[in-house]
């Protein structure tokens, strides 16, 4: 139990995938222009990341390792991620048209989120168990969601700020992300098992 809490704290704060490991920067900058889109993206990513880290673990442990095909890891993981994104999209469309309206356009984007592949690969590299892998994926997506939502709200405020012309838009957003990353260095040293 304590180990799982450490995994969560570590992935959400200490080794935040966006601000510390610098993975998943494309959606972080691309979908943070307004808060509702960012919330939708966070929810969809949370679902897909947890699902794909679980299925990638199962595939690796029960198919690749017994067949000695570990060198196909990256390739199969990409396939698994694409499949779980597709699965999520189909399920959402069939089960809840409302959710589809909110999340619809973001779901395919998740396939290109490098944090998703990063989580699957790190799980294997650090040879985690099944439950740990799922928690790692879930924690990573929660960390992603936390900074994405905060960042989107901050960017909405920056839109109306009197920022000097050369720094408007992406420039000031990247600087904000940099200062956020500096601030997250304050968590270093936490969550050592």
């Amino acid at each position: 139990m304590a180990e799982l809490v450490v995994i969560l704290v570590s992935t959400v704060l200490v080794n935040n995938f966006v601000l510390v490991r610098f993975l998943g920067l494309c959606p972080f900058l691309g979908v943070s222009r307004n808060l509702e889109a960012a919330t939708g993206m966070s929810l969809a990513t949370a679902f897909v990341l947890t699902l794909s880290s679980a299925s990638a673990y199962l595939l690796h442990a029960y198919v690749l390792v017994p067949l000695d095909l570990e060198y196909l890891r990256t390739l199969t993981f990409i396939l698994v991620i694409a499949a779980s994104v597709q699965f999520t999209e189909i399920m959402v469309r069939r089960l809840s048209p409302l959710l589809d309206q909110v999340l619809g356009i973001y779901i395919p984007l998740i396939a290109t989120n490098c944090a998703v592949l990063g989580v699957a690969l790190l799980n294997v590299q650090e040879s985690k168990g099944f439950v740990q892998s799922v928690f790692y994926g879930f924690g990573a997506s929660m960390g992603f969601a936390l900074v994405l939502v905060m960042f989107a709200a901050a960017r909405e405020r920056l839109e109306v700020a009197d920022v000097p012309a050369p720094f408007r838009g992406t420039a000031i957003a990247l600087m904000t992300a940099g200062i956020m990353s500096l601030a997250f260095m304050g968590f270093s040293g936490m969550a050592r098992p």
Partner: protein
Amino acid sequence: MEFARRESPYWSARVAVPSLMLQVLAALAPAALAHVWFFGPGFIFNLLVASLFAVAGEAMMVHLRKRPLEVALTDYSALVTAALLAFALPSLTPWWVTATGALFAVVVAKHLYGGLGFNIFNPAMAGYVVILVAFPMHLNLWIAPRIGDIDYQYLTVLQTLKFTLTGSLPEALGFDAVSRATPLDVMKTGLSNARTVSEIRANPIMGDFGGRGWEWIGNFLAIGGFWLLIKKIIRWHIPAAVGAGLLIPATIMYLVEPGTNPSPGFHMFGGAAILCAFFIATDPVSAATSPKGRLIFGFGVGLLIYCIRTWGSYADGVAFAVIIMNVAVPAIDYVTRPHIVGHPRRGDSS
């Protein structure tokens, strides 16, 4: 007969930014004197360097942006930023470190974000975080307080000035001879070496609650803070919430295991908690706006300070906690928008 008619507002607010900032500076003054009394003249040099570069940076940015120079320079906000930065620095800090912090604070954290009123981050803390991460070695030279019987070689005024300007110490003295760990550092190192709190507190730099000297600076900061409260320059929400966020977990942990957790009093007086509660977190620009939002913001700052002090690798977490909660402020404001009279409440379907 024509009566003189006035449109609303009938009561004009007498609060202007310059007088506000001057009163904040006045409230910091007693603590600054205490700082000089206990930790030597280094504080004055740091304050001068920080003020010089903060004002120069402000003038440069205002000039580049072709805004009226007098308005920006006479609102004293750059001086408040410089003063807060000086309080965060050790007495022996080379001038280029202070200058980097002050310039980053004013140029990047304040003016690139649009100037006073638009800055998302607290400028002083953003500048301090940058130099803390960039020059950790140069922000280690805390000296011992001039109180009690501490075996320590105090530097003279000239030696301190020389260090501020050149970064070099007198011939015979090494860094170890002039630097002493802060109370929070001593506590953190001691606890990680599996010593108990009462053993660590036997160190001569420890005072009644926090560290010797530090406690007095804390007292004067609290007096200044309460004066600001009475003058209604700050509201009670943030200081109270920072205190609660820091002291509630500290008290619980202390009651559960007093051997390995320092007392709540130590957390309050051991570092920059009081400065943070009254002067840093209450920055009206970068803090949350609604009363409920301020309570959440302050509690978050206090809680993060406790977490970073207890489990992180930095001794004090005020700057990190404030910057992290600054990022969260727009989201907090979004969630705690006050109800507008006449509009349906959120959650109502009608």
